[in-house]
């Protein structure tokens, strides 16, 4: 019995070591910057039904809050710091986001595209 458990654990370990990095590698990363209360880039294109990791660098000295009702996301990013936000998987469409602390200037959107459309 213990041997069986041992073998199961080894298999589990092997699966975990192989599968986990794969899952991680499969999450595409997109880098954004906030500078002078503007998002750069302010339009992000991502494929449909895919989880994406947004890495946002706030190059301003003041804090900003990344906010999107459509994406259901909300996060304070302190001045001179970076933040990680996961979005998706999403269906095709446009998802606006804004900087809540400077909503007049800090605006952008995520455009989610079906793979077929993107290929054309």
């Amino acid at each position, binding site marked *: 019995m213990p041997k069986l458990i041992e073998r199961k654990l080894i298999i589990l370990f092997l699966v975990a070591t192989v599968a986990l990095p794969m899952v991680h590698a499969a999450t595409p990363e997109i880098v954004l910057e906030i500078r002078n209360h503007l998002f750069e880039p302010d339009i992000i294109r991502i494929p449909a039904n895919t989880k994406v990791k947004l890495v946002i660098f706030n190059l301003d000295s003041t804090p900003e809050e990344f906010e999107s009702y459509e994406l259901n996301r909300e996060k304070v990013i302190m001045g001179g*710091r970076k933040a990680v936000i996961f979005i998706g998987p999403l269906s095709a469409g446009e998802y606006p986001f804004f900087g809540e602390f400077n909503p007049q200037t800090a605006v952008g959107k995520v455009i989610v595209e079906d793979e077929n459309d993107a290929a054309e």
Partner: protein
Amino acid sequence: MLLNSVIIVLREVLEAALMISVLLVLTRLLHANGRWLWRALLLGLAGAVFYGSQLEKISEFFDGVGQEIVNAGLQFFVFAALLVCTFLVTRSFRQSTERPRLLPAAMAWAVGVAVAREGSEILVYVSGFMQSDNFFANVSMGSAIGACIGFSTGVLLYYLLLMMPPGRSRFTAQVLIALIGAGMCAQATRLLIQADWLSVEGPLWDTSSLLSEYSTAGQLLYALIGYEASPSMIEVMVYVGSLLLMGVMFLSANAMDRGPAEATA
């Protein structure tokens, strides 16, 4: 800039103000002392200053999603405190002779932690404008207006609830506590999704064309019952699960003082 500060601060203050009103109504209906509120606000203020000043460090935890994890933890803590409140309030209504000592403490912790979380965000926002004189005047003015509207809404809810007959007032207040608690759990779940600690498929439904989260009604319902236009399956499950848990608390508190005689029969 002015209007923007009004909205930001209002949104943060509103959630806490509504919770405070409902808990105060229950306190009043139980003829208990409302002094716990001062302790709660003191705790909240101290917590907000501490959390706000540490946010930069906290954000770095857990590979950059510390903010989400800590915020979600705080939300679940408030929910747990509200569960205790529901249990003790229900019991107190059944046995008016006994006044549980734990009740003011549970209310103070629920409000204190909620105020700390929301207050820290206001502090971070306002502190960002400290350096620029021309903006700071506008921002502090706007924040004050936003806070006043938030408090007024809370006061309005307080008197609306107290104007009802006591039975209905108590029922409405207890239902609101359950909805506020469930909303917090759904919010916490959303934060765990944002941090990639929970994985989701797409949203279960989308009511943004019916009631937008940008609208005043949407914002008010968000603060009160955690309205979300396009929730995922897991958020809905957590919301319903929290309501059920609150219901179990209510029922078990009600069943307890039927006494052992009835329980064994």
